[in-house]
Each structure stands twice: as structure tokens, then as C-alpha cells.
């Protein structure tokens, strides 16, 4: 058997058998699944509760107004979970005093000077959600707007006819036709992908470094190096850990999918037409390669009342992303980025004696990676800009930045170009690192400088 293969096998098996690997493989998916399910679950819990908000109105003289003088009665429309009760001649203090027993979610205080002071107040013992606040604001705004227009003798019909509600739908032209898309969703997926690659490069690159420092401080390297060439040992370690990384990620995807599917089917067996539950689980099943949803879910969808059309819209958008492509590029750019940085981590590991010495050489690794992470915000906003293009071509930032751009359906040639440059740079970097490595692993007790590393590049064997 080839000696590099033996090294790969050892590196892989010793790591995969470790307790920490097994724990991470289980904890990771639990965490991911929780991240996907819990927000949706919380939302569904909150939404099901019907809430009543008491509305009191004060005159400009700061007195509660009787029913006949209420200007804002029935102005704010009810929603599926919000109801408004208009209380004439009621003092705010009274409500406050009896708030706990009254069962009101909040008290909306509207002074009649709102027409020029533009301010109402929402009192509650809890922090009311943004949705509630927005709903009230827009209702009063609209009412006052109409009121103002009517002052100019414009009839209600005219106002109603003039009012339009515009939404801009983003639609992508693809070979299969038109697809509804979501810029917001692309941003989320892009950011998640880029960030995950950033974390994984650090995590597994550091394992390469630690492994090398370990062999060096153990002095086992002195024994191994008589039977294996330094390059074989280094590349064996890098490849072995790469396989560990790929295994881990694959396990994460499969297990996360499994967990979420399990919870999903459990939830649907419990209460079929509960629409709110649809959201998070569906996001995932589509992410996992568009696995067809199970039957109860289809039924549930057909029974959707019309006010759920918005949700349906979200689902279509979620499906609009090409997850197979995103997953393939994820693996491809994780591997390329890891290999490039692992070679640098290996060179550093060989040059130092203990892990605490790493700091001085970490800058060339951390700066481009952190830079890539910082630029991701810019790239996500302007994925087609020149800077975004170059950041996704330069190999030191491309694994992260390209992942951020991928959900925006960038041209294939850019992905290929970026990939080719990344892998070529990795080969070059490995060749350079190998030169530092073979000198470094046999140097002990010497404080090494960058100048020294530079010299090692030119040492003869």
C-alpha cells in the first residue's frame, strides 16, 4: 500500500474514532435543527393566542372622550390574532390600575392632538411585538391620510380608487422559464454558506496545525520521517483531515435532515391543518434537495384559506433556489479553501514548537479570512459588482465570498474560473509549504522569524 495512503488512513481513523468527533456529529445537527425549527415554532405559539388591545381616546384638553366623540373608533382593523376594544370615557389610570385583571394585551392611548402631534402610545407590561406596532401605525396613518384628503373635498370613492398597493416581485429568467425568487432568502443562504465555510476552514485547518505541532513536540516525527518523505506525511495529514471534515459535514446534513423530517412528520400527524407549522420544515425539506413533502402536508396546503397565500408565496421563493448546485459548490469551495489554508497551517505548525507560539504566524491566515467575512455584507448587497467579482476570484477570499454569491445565480464561468484559480493556488501553496515543512519539523527550540521561513524555502534537501 502506498505510504501516503497509510498516513491518510491513520489520520482519518484516529480522528473519526475520537469522542469529540462523535459528540460534534450529534450536537451539530441538533443545533442546526433547533435553529431552523425553534423560531418558527415560537412564532406559531405566539400567533395562535388571540390578543385584545384596549383603545382609549383623550380630547385635546386631555380628558377621556365619550363614545359619541371618539374619532378613531373602529379605525384599526382586526387581524387573525389581534382584536381592538374601544373604551369610551375611560381614564388611562383606571386601566393601568386594573391591567392585570382586565386581560388586555396592551392599551393604546390616542390623544386627539395626534392629527398634528403625530404620536400615540401603546402601554403594556410586556414588550409588544414589532408587527403589532406596525399594524397600528399603518392603520392610523392611512385613516389620517384619508381624513386629510377629505378636507379638500375629495370624495371617499376617489380616495379609494386612487389608493394602490404595490409589491415588487423578483423573477428570474432561467432556461426552464420564469421563476419567482427572493433576494432576502438568497442573502440568508449566501451568508450562512460563507460563514460555515469560514468556520470550517478555521476548525479543520487548525487541526492540521495541531497535528503537526503534536508530532513535532512528541518527536515521533523523527521516527516517521525515516520511512516517509516529509511531503507524504504532510499531504497525508492534510488529506486525512479533509476527509474527516467532509465526513463531518455530510453527517451534519444527513442528520439535520433526518431530525427535522422526524419532527415534521410528528407535528403533522398531531395537527394536520395547522398552517403555521408549514414554514420552517418546508424550508428545510427543500434545502435538502427538494424531497417531496408527505401527503398530509399536501392536504394541508389545499385547505389553506386565502389569507395564507403569502406563506405559499414564501414557499415558492424558497424552492426557487437551486440547492443541489449550492450544496455542490459548498463542498467544492470548502475543500479548495480548506486545502489552501491547511497548507499554510501546516507550514506554521512545522515552524513552531508549541501551540502557544502560533500567534506570530497566524496573521497571514486570519487577515484574508476575516477580510472575506467582513466583505460578505457588501457582496450580498451587490453580488454583481466588480469588487464582489474580484473577491470571489482571488483564492484567499474566494471560498467564502463565492459561497455568498452562489445563491444569486452568477454565471457559471465565474464559478469555474474561481475554482480553477483556487485549486491551482492550493497546489502552489502546498509546494511552498512543503519546503518550509520539511525544514521546520526537524528544528527545535529555535524562535523562528518570517525571514527564517523565507530562507527555508530555498534550502536544499
Amino acid at each position, binding site marked *: *500500500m502506498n*505510504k501516503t495512503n*497509510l*498516513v491518510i488512513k*491513520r489520520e482519518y481513523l*484516529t480522528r473519526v474514532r475520537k469522542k469529540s468527533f462523535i459528540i460534534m456529529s450529534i450536537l451539530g445537527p441538533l443545533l442546526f435543527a433547533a435553529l431552523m425549527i425553534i423560531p418558527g415554532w415560537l412564532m406559531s405559539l405566539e400567533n395562535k393566542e388571540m390578543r385584545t388591545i384596549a383603545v382609549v381616546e383623550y380630547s385635546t384638553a386631555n380628558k377621556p372622550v365619550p363614545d359619541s366623540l371618539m374619532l378613531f373608533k373602529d379605525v384599526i382593523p382586526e387581524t387573525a390574532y389581534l382584536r381592538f376594544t374601544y373604551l369610551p370615557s375611560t381614564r388611562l389610570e383606571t386601566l393601568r390600575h386594573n391591567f392585570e385583571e382586565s386581560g388586555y394585551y396592551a392599551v393604546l392611548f390616542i390623544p386627539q392632538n395626534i392629527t398634528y402631534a403625530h404620536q400615540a402610545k401603546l402601554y403594556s407590561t410586556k414588550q409588544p411585538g414589532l408587527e403589532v406596532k406596525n399594524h397600528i401605525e399603518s392603520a392610523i396613518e392611512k385613516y389620517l391620510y384619508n381624513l386629510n384628503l377629505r378636507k379638500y373635498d375629495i370624495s371617499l370613492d376617489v380616495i379609494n380608487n386612487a389608493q394602490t398597493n404595490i409589491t415588487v416581485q423578483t423573477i428570474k429568467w432561467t432556461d426552464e422559464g420564469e421563476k419567482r425568487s427572493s433576494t432576502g432568502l438568497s442573502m440568508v443562504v449566501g451568508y450562512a454558506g460563507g460563514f460555515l465555510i469560514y468556520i470550517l476552514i478555521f476548525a479543520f485547518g487548525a487541526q492540521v496545525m495541531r497535528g503537526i505541532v503534536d*508530532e513535532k*513536540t*512528541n*518527536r*515521533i*516525527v*523523527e*521516527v*516517521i*520521517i*525515516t*520511512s*516517509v518523505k516529509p511531503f507524504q506525511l504532510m499531504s497525508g495529514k492534510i488529506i486525512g483531515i479533509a476527509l474527516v471534515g467532509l465526513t463531518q459535514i455530510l453527517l451534519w446534513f444527513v442528520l439535520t435532515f433526518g431530525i427535522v423530517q422526524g419532527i415534521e412528520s410528528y407535528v403533522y400527524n398531531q395537527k394536520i391543518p395547522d398552517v403555521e407549522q408549514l414554514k420552517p420544515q418546508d424550508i428545510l425539506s427543500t434545502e435538502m434537495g427538494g424531497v417531496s413533502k408527505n401527503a398530509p402536508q399536501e392536504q394541508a396546503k389545499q385547505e389553506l384559506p386565502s389569507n395564507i397565500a403569502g406563506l405559499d408565496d414564501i414557499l415558492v421563493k424558497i424552492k426557487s433556489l437551486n440547492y443541489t448546485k449550492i450544496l455542490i459548490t459548498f463542498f467544492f469551495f470548502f475543500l479548495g479553501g480548506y486545502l489552501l489554508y491547511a497548507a499554510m497551517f501546516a507550514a506554521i505548525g512545522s515552524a513552531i514548537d508549541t501551540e502557544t507560539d502560533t500567534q506570530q504566524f497566524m496573521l497571514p491566515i486570519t487577515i484574508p479570512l476575516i477580510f472575506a467575512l467582513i466583505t460578505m455584507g457588501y457582496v450580498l448587497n451587490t453580488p454583481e459588482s466588480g469588487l464582489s467579482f474580484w473577491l470571489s476570484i482571488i483564492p484567499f477570499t474566494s471560498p467564502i465570498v463565492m459561497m455568498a454569491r452562489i445563491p444569486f445565480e452568477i454565471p457559471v464561468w465565474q464559478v469555474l474560473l474561481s475554482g480553477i484559480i483556487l485549486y491551482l493556488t492550493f497546489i502552489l501553496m502546498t509546494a511552498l509549504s512543503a519546503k518550509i515543512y520539511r525544514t521546520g519539523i*526537524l528544528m*527545535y527550540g529555535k524562535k523562528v522569524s518570517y525571514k527564517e521561513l523565507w*530562507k527555508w524555502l530555498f*534550502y*536544499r*534537501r
Partner: protein
Amino acid sequence: MDLFVAENISKRFSNHLALEDVSVIIPQGSIYGLLGPNGAGKTTLLRIVNQITGPDTGELFFNGRKLKADDVYNIGYLPEERGLYRKMKVGEQVVYLSRLKGLSKNDALQKSKYWFEKFQIEDWWGKKVEELSKGMQQKIQFIITVLHEPELLIFDEPFSGFDPINANLLKNEILDLRNQGATVIFSTHNMSSVEELCSDISLINRSKIILEGNIQSIRSQYKSNTFKVVFSDDQEKLTKGLTDSFSIVEIKHKQGLNEALIQLNVGTGNELLKNLVSLVHVISFQEVIPGMNDIFIQVVEQSNLAA
């Protein structure tokens, strides 16, 4: 026949010359001592033999032909700075390292088992290395060095850290391996083990070989014509009666007897003995053969003065 020959090896690192025109001939079946102070270049030479680094100039021959990459399978090296994977199981580790030396999985398993039985350490097989004491780890390292049955064995300070019992065990194993046909290079500062084991030596100081050859001829070459005599009479009888051919280097009282070191200015040991017998009651008489320790110090100091 010579198993290993290094001809005119030089090796320079960026700012110092590690080896300068070093030639070494290692006869087949010998135990060859590679001596020298710290930093003299021994480890560099051993690394060149192991093809860890290459020489700048000079040539290396193994079994009469040029040293090639595959020859590492025929060399076993126990470095001075040695270690094991601490978290790996002992048995797995031995098998892994011997497979890197070219053994098949079955051979590696079979031979590891043989050595574990021989050293009666079968129950260590499934333990992690970090559970073993330093001496135990060194036994494992020894097994790893010899397991693939190489023709050339290289031990760099093999006895350091061993207790006397294990050191003796190790010494006997080395002698056994030599008797079975292996050639041994032995690098150490322990001169008594050199005298005990080595047939030939090279002494390296400041990148150069300053002394080499058969250990017996080196020792007799460094004889200073000094004799030690133990006698039971008064010291004065000796000091007054000795002829001018001989001079007393040292004389002392020791455990009720007297002991003198006498150097020959002219003449032979027999003539000295004749002279002594006529003067005092001689209890023992022997020529002083210098130990490797004295030769080492003397030669290295001379060479340092000359430099």
C-alpha cells in the same frame, strides 16, 4: 565487506558547516561507534544516512552500490529525540510504523506479536501510549526500530533513560541482532558502553572526523607507557631506589598498601618490573591502557586547541 560507506560528505546549513569532508566506512557485522561532543555533527550525519537530508557533496554507498531511496526499508533508526503518538494504542502504533517501513499488514502483525511476546509485554497491546512509563515507551521504540529486520541498525543514545536492568536487556538484544548478521551504528556519550560493545569508532568534532579505526588499536595507540604498581613496603624504598629510566607520576597510600603510577622514559615494562622487584614487595603490576573516556577528552581538547 563494508555495509555502508560515506565518502567525503559535506553539509552546510545557512550559517554553519555541519559536516566537512567526512568519510566513514562501516564494516558488515560491526558495531560501529559514532562519537563526538554535542553539536559536532553526529545527528546530521545520521540524518544523511537515513536520507532525511541529503549531503551537499559526497557519496553514499549501501551494500556496495549507491544508496537509493528504497534502502530506508533496510535501515532501522532509533533517534536520540524520539517519541510516539501518545493517544494511539501501542499495538496499532507498532503495526502502523512498521507498515510505513514497507511490511505488509500480516507481516507487521505477526512480527509485532513476536516481539511483544519476547519482551513479555502482550498486555500492553491495547493500551494507549500515554499510559506507559518512559522506560516502557522506550522498549516499544526499540521494537519499532528492529521490527522490520533491517540490515543496518542505528541507535542514537539508546540507553539514556533506561534503568540498568532494561539497559542490559537492550544491550543483549543489540548484541543478539549483531550476531544474527545485522550491522549497528551506535552513537553515544557513554564511553563504557562504547568500550564494551563497539569494534570500530569514528570521533567527530567540529564537523570533522578527528579519530577513527579499530577500538583496540586506538587504545593501544594512546598508551602513554605508564604502569601501575601496587606494593606493600615503604614508599621511600621505591622513590629512592628507582633508576633514571623511569619516573614516578603519582604515588599514594591506599587501603594499607601503596600504589604508584610509573612512566617509562626509556626501556620496557619488563625492565621496570625487574627494577621494582629488587626494591619492594610487588603485589600487582599492570600497564595502564587509556579508556575511551580519556582518549575522547584528550583528542577533542587537542583538536579544539588546534582550531
